[in-house]
């Protein structure tokens, strides 16, 4: 109990170096039972950036997110958040894949968004009026205020994603990790989410999105990270999504189609959202 209390009080003492990158990894390596899932991955992200992480199945996208979120400890190498180790940081939000959530859970939309605040509410305390105001503001920012009282199972796919983005806002997250957020959504829902992501950029919130859709990665993101256990390329979409790089990343897993206009399309052999 004591440990927890001291951590709660230490939240305010977690240092953020304003000049350091929001996220920095140094030679990050993760192995499961001796088999590497990520090998010597080094990169850093700037505040307010929107980055797409692409790569074939088993490329380590989910592993990377878990390590950055602090759910999984790295085998070697390190993760730094705003210049300091991940301990005590509550500024990272993880938006789960829709299939990972129990939508029958007895919680309303506002309940789920409030969950993002409990680190700041603190142990043995109830959310105060200011916390509920933050929750309402977060729901307003994703245009979900009218649905605050709904049970979460009643939401559409796009609304589910926006609820989790509202939770990230309520958490006052500075880095948001999203796993396949646009998968299986219709065009208006996708646009609504991209609109919310534009709002996050204005607040200088960094967003990292794992996606299978290379077209979206090229269109909507500042930088693209091409991953296949190792970091193959990381930079502006035009520099990263070249035939050569994609072949290096996907090898035989994907099918490259050279279009008449000189662009390249990659058909991923993956199923939708089936990645573990």
């Amino acid at each position: 109990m004591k440990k927890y209390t001291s951590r709660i009080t230490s939240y305010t003492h977690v240092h953020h170096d304003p000049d350091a990158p929001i996220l920095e990894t140094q030679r990050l390596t993760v192995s499961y039972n001796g088999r590497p899932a990520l090998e010597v991955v080094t990169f850093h992200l700037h505040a307010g950036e929107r980055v797409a992480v692409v790569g074939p199945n088993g490329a380590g996208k989910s592993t990377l997110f878990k390590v950055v979120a602090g759910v999984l400890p790295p085998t070697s190498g390190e993760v730094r958040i705003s210049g300091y180790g991940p301990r005590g940081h509550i500024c990272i939000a993880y938006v789960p894949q829709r299939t990972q959530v129990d939508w029958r859970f007895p919680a309303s939309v506002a309940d789920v968004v409030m969950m993002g605040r409990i680190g700041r509410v603190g142990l043995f305390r109830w959310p105060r009026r200011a916390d509920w105001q933050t929750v309402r503001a977060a729901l307003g920012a994703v245009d979900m205020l009218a649905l605050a009282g709904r049970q979460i199972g009643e939401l559409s796919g796009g609304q589910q994603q926006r609820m989790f983005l509202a939770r990230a806002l309520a958490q006052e997250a500075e880095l948001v990790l999203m796993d396949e957020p646009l998968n299986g959504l219709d065009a208006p829902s996708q646009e609504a989410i991209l609109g919310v992501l534009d709002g996050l950029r204005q607040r200088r919130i960094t967003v990292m999105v794992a996606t299978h859709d290379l077209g979206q990665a090229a269109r909507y993101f500042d930088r693209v990270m091409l991953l296949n256990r190792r970091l193959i390329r990381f930079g502006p979409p035009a520099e990263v999504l070249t035939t050569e790089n994609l072949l290096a990343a996907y090898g035989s897993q994907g099918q490259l189609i050279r279009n008449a206009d000189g662009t390249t399309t990659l058909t991923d052999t993956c199923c939708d959202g089936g990645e573990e």
Partner: protein
Amino acid sequence: MTGLLDIFIQPLTYDFMVRGLIAAVLVGVVCAVVGVYVVLRGMAFFGDALAHAVLPGVALGYLVSGSGRENLFWWALGSAVLVALAIGRVSRRAEIKEDTAIGILFAAMFALGIALISTVRSYTVDLSHFLFGDVLGVSTRDLLLTAVFGGVVLLVIVLFYKEFLVLSFDPVLAATLRLPASLLNNLLFVLMALTVSVAMQTVGVALMVAMLVTPAATASLLTRRLWAMMLVSAGIGAFSAVTGLYLSYYFNVVSGSAIVLTATAIFLLVFLFNPRQGMLRGRKD
């Protein structure tokens, strides 16, 4: 009219019946509230195993202290906490699947308990008390222990409401908020152990899982918020306890069975005639 009232009042002229009723209601409420987490986290098998695994501890206490019942609660409590934390530890290792590990542990402990009790001559009578409970044998002291430990369980659930909520709904969020997940999980296991110890005398180990799961499952069909599910579950638990005990009194049925069958009847009624069909429609699998 007086005849109907008599049906309710007449049993209360016996002190043991009054104690039994209070104990049954306390146990019904505590089990039902803890049961909400058992249901939401898919821990029904864990709860069943935990209840059965208490038996060797109780049997040992029984052999050591003779048939004196006073100390059996503490033996039950000790063994329940030990087993709960042991299962928690075993299930975190990857070599064996969690339910397999629980199955092995649970059957072995149960067998050990029966083996120990069977060394006593009058074992059939005593064994049935352990298996199915003996709510009418509750002493004032038992009642006090039930109230104190039941109260502790409810208090902790209220105090850690939002932490347990996050941990049950989204373990990844718990990790990103830097909640001490394993500490909280162990706390929940200990709460379940306390509940099992408290409920042992009323419903017995064999039917304990029904007290944990059935009212909460019924409540999940009727509610959409965690706190509402807890309140409704507690209400169903208390109602089942009272109704079951009266049925037990008038029809001479074992009290634990009567309570569980009442809870099951309520579940079936709600399941079949749920006024809130919308809940089912909103569900995705």
